[in-house]
Every structure is written in C-alpha cells, then in structure tokens.
C-alpha cells in the first residue's frame, strides 16, 4: 500500500515537472512487403501539449524522430590478400545492430541532446551498434563495428536526417522518413523525443510492424517450414513450365 502511494506521488511529481507533452501518430503502423514492394514512407506527425507556457529562460524546443528496425547480431568478415587473391579471413560478430535506423531531427543530435541523455535513451548508432567482444587475435575489432555502420549507410539502411523534422511554432511537427526497398520483416520501433536545453522533456513510442504479405509471405513460410514440399513444388513448377514451353513451340513451329 505504501509502495503504491509512493509510486503515485512520484508520478504526480513527474507530471508536474513535465509541463510539455508530446502527442504523436504515424501514417501507418503496418508496412506490407508485397511482391511489388518498392520502399515506403512513414509519415510521423504530432503536436506539443502544454499546461503552462515554458519558462522564459528555457532554450528552444527540439524534436527528434527515431525509427529503428529489427535488432540482431551481424557477422562481419574482412578480406585479405592471400596468394594474390582476396579472401575472407578475419571474422567478428557484432552482437547487436539494427537492420534499419533513421534519426530525423530539427537540428543535429549533438546540439539538442546531451551525451548522457543520448546514452540513457539509446539514441544514435554509437549505442545501437554494439560490439561486446571479439576474438583476441584481432587487433582492431572496432573497424568491424564501423564497417557495419558504413556498409548499411551506403545501402540506405542507416540514415541521419538532421533538419528533416519540421517544427511550427514549437507546437506542430512532422517528418517523412523513407523506408528502402530492401526492408526486412520485423517489428520496428518509432520514437519521438521533445528536448529543451539538451535534455529530454517527453517522449512517445510505438511499434511499426513490417510483414511480408500475400504470395511473398506464403512462399517464404513454405520455404522455411515445409522445405521438402517447397523443393518438390519448385521442381514441379519448373518442369511444368519447361513442358509448356516445349509444347507451345512445337505447336508454333511443327
């Protein structure tokens, strides 16, 4: 009972301290990867709810929108020249890295958020791409971590979009975050942060479900769960097509 009262009091005090709240929504919480999927776009928009005017000495309000895709381990391999040809030799497993990452904000992140708050809220690639340990014989494990960021950035999977968020009158904001065509299935987390004086004022979090749909989904599930049937089906379809072609051309050119 006492714990409950304590928690309620704490919540109330937090509510009082937080004079500004974010209200946000997304254009879609579900992205379907269909056969003709060619990338998509998530439109994030919202408003700032205020109970009292901000203190006169407070810095300007900033907004950050972060969308981060399924997080998992990545195996990074490095090529080396052996006997004249390039061969994968060293291998490091980066323990955690998001597949997709987009950080859109009103101003560059370091100008709107302290280092501590970035770390606390896991904002930015330094926190999200995490290498915990590497084999001892590798002298430069962090080069492998950097490779994840570099390669995924060049594929359009990681992006920093400073200045992309439009903020009107410190009240209304919106941003459109492009999703590339090479997206994978999974739950993506979308977060919105309001900051003042490099500190988080309020935040909002929601999930975007990215799923294969229709034929794509059916083929993928069959290939994973019923591999033998899938293999037989592949052969049967190929044979049917080969036979149809032979029959058709025999009919056309007797």
């Amino acid at each position, binding site marked *: 009972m006492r714990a409950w009262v304590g928690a309620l009091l704490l919540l109330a005090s937090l509510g009082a301290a937080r004079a500004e709240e974010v209200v946000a929504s997304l254009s879609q919480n579900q992205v379907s*990867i*269909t*056969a*003709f*999927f*060619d*990338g998509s776009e998530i439109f994030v928009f919202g408003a700032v709810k205020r109970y009292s005017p901000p203190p006169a000495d407070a810095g300007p309000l900033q907004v950050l929108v972060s969308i981060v895709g399924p997080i*998992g*381990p*990545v*195996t*990074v*391999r*490095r*090529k*080396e020249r052996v006997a*004249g*040809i*390039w*061969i*994968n030799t060293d*291998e490091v*497993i980066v323990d955690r890295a998001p*597949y997709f990452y987009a950080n859109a904000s009103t101003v560059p992140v370091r100008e709107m958020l302290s280092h501590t708050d970035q770390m606390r809220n896991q904002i930015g690639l330094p926190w999200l791409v995490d290498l915990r340990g590497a084999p001892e014989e590798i002298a430069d494990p962090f*080069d*492998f971590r950097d*490779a*994840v960021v*570099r*390669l*995924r950035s060049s594929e359009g999977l990681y992006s920093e979009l400073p200045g992309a968020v439009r903020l009107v009158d410190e009240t209304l904001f919106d941003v459109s975050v492009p999703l590339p*065509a*090479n997206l*994978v299935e999974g739950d993506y987390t979308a977060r919105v942060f309001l900051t003042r004086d490099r500190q988080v004022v309020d935040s909002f979090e929601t999930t975007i479900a990215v799923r*294969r749909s229709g*034929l*794509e*989904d059916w*083929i*993928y599930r069959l*290939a*994973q769960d019923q*591999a*033998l049937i*899938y*293999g*037989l*089906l*592949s*052969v049967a*379809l*190929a*044979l049917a*097509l*080969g*036979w149809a*072609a*032979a029959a058709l*051309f025999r009919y056309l*050119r007797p």
Partner: protein
Amino acid sequence: MQLYLPIAEVSVNLFLLLGLGTIVGVLSGMFGVGGGFLLTPLLIFIGIPPAVAVATQAPQITGLSFSGTLAHLRRRTVDIKMGLVLLAGGLLGSLIGVRIFKWLSEMGQVELLVSLCYVVFLGVIGGLMFIESLNTLRKSRKPGTVKRRQRHVWVHRLPFKMRFRTSHLYISAIPPFAIGFFVGILSAIMGVGGGFIMVPAMIYIIGMPTAVVVGTSLFQIMFVTAFTTILHATQNYTVDTMLALLLLVGGVVGAQFGAIIAVKMKAEQLRIALALMVLAVCLKLAFDLIVTPDDLYSLTVGT
C-alpha cells in the same frame, strides 16, 4: 517495375530479370549449352546473394533441360541406360556438393569457392575450345587429312563392363559414373547443369556417338538439378522459386530464337564465339578476385 524476391530478400527490376533470362536463353539456344555458367555470375553482379544465385539456378536448369530432353526423346537421341549410370554418379555428387556448399557458406567462403570454380573451369574449357576451333578453322582452309577421333585405351580395361546399345558401346560403368559424379558436384556448387564438362567428356573419354551426347547429357542434367533443388531447398533454404520461374520464362523463349540464329551461322564461328564468351566471363571473375575490392568488409545477418 521492381519485384521483391521472397527468398533472396532483394528488390530487383522485373524486366531486367526477364531480359537476362532471354539473353542467356538466346545464347543457350545458339550454342546448345545450358547457360548456367553465364547466368550465375550475372545474377551475382546484379545483387542476388551468391548462395541464392547458385541454388536458384538448379530448378531453372531443370525446366530448361526438360524441354530439351522431351525433344531428344522424340528423336530417340537419348541413351537412357548411359543416362542412368551418369545419373547415379550425379546424384551422389550433388549430395556431396550441397554438403560442401553448406559447410563453406557457414565459413563465409561460398563466394570465393564459386568464383574460383568458375575461373578454373571456364578458363580451361574456354581456352581448349578456343585453341581447337582456331585449329579447325586453319585446317578447313587447306585440305589435309582428317584426324580420327582417338578413344582412350585405359577406359576399356576397367571392370564392371556394361552394354550400351544406343551408343553401340561395351565399356566399364566406372567412367560414366565418375563423370556423372564430378558433374553432380559442380552442379551443386556452381549452379550449372554441367553440360559444358559432360559433353566433351562423353565424346572424348567415353567415346559416345555425337548424335546421342546432347540428349543424354540433358536427361542426366534434368534429374540431377531436380535433386539439387530439393537438397538446396531443404538444407540451405536458398532456392528462390519466383526468381527461377522468371528466368525460365525468359530462357525458354530466348532459346527458341537462339536455335533459329544458330542455323544461320557456321559451326566454327559459333564455337569461336562461345569460346570467347566463356573466356570473357572467366577473365571478369578472375579480375574481381585479384583487384582490391571497394570495401574489404562484408556483412551477414546472424551469427
């Protein structure tokens, strides 16, 4: 129009795929080769993961060789008994090839394996073909004695002799079994039918009559690639049926046009053109192995 391939997990232009299938189909119709050796590197160049490119070739080749086998069966140019011996070796080879492929892909060396196999085999075959067709061109200009085809004597001394009526041969089953086995391995790790190895081997090592060589090799290739498809699908999960069917549609149409073009060209010219093409693919792959890559690092999702 972009198409998202469910197994390869990449988005590729639909018309690019159909176009590639057609071009390779035209070439395969012109030269009477499967075209797998061209298509696999091309698929990798356009961004299909190598493991998927190799495995997806298998059903594609099954379909192509099925239409070819049907035509040869009607003309009775298939030595079914020889085909079955080649096939027995092929199935065993494919089983081992897929195992090697899986093992190397876990080690991250699949790309290297595929490239090296291509460079070695295309280099040797292309080089030999080029030299031979140059020689025949030179000989055809000045009249001279035609050299008789030599049959290897050692082949006839081996045990397990069998009679192959269609080929008019009474030879040991070991050489065809071994050839089939070797081609089965290549089919699984290179994503090819293996006709470019099997056809010369059948002529020069087994000594089969040229008339039944192509039909018999297609017969073997059809079954071996069907088996390889199932193995890749169940062990590596890398067969993209959607990709295979699209390539097949382009391929069967292209092959018909290729066959029409082939009739209008001289055999020697065709062989030199094929040899040059094989050498060009070989050089491109060799160049990629030697030249410093754009980025030394590569990523694989998972551990």
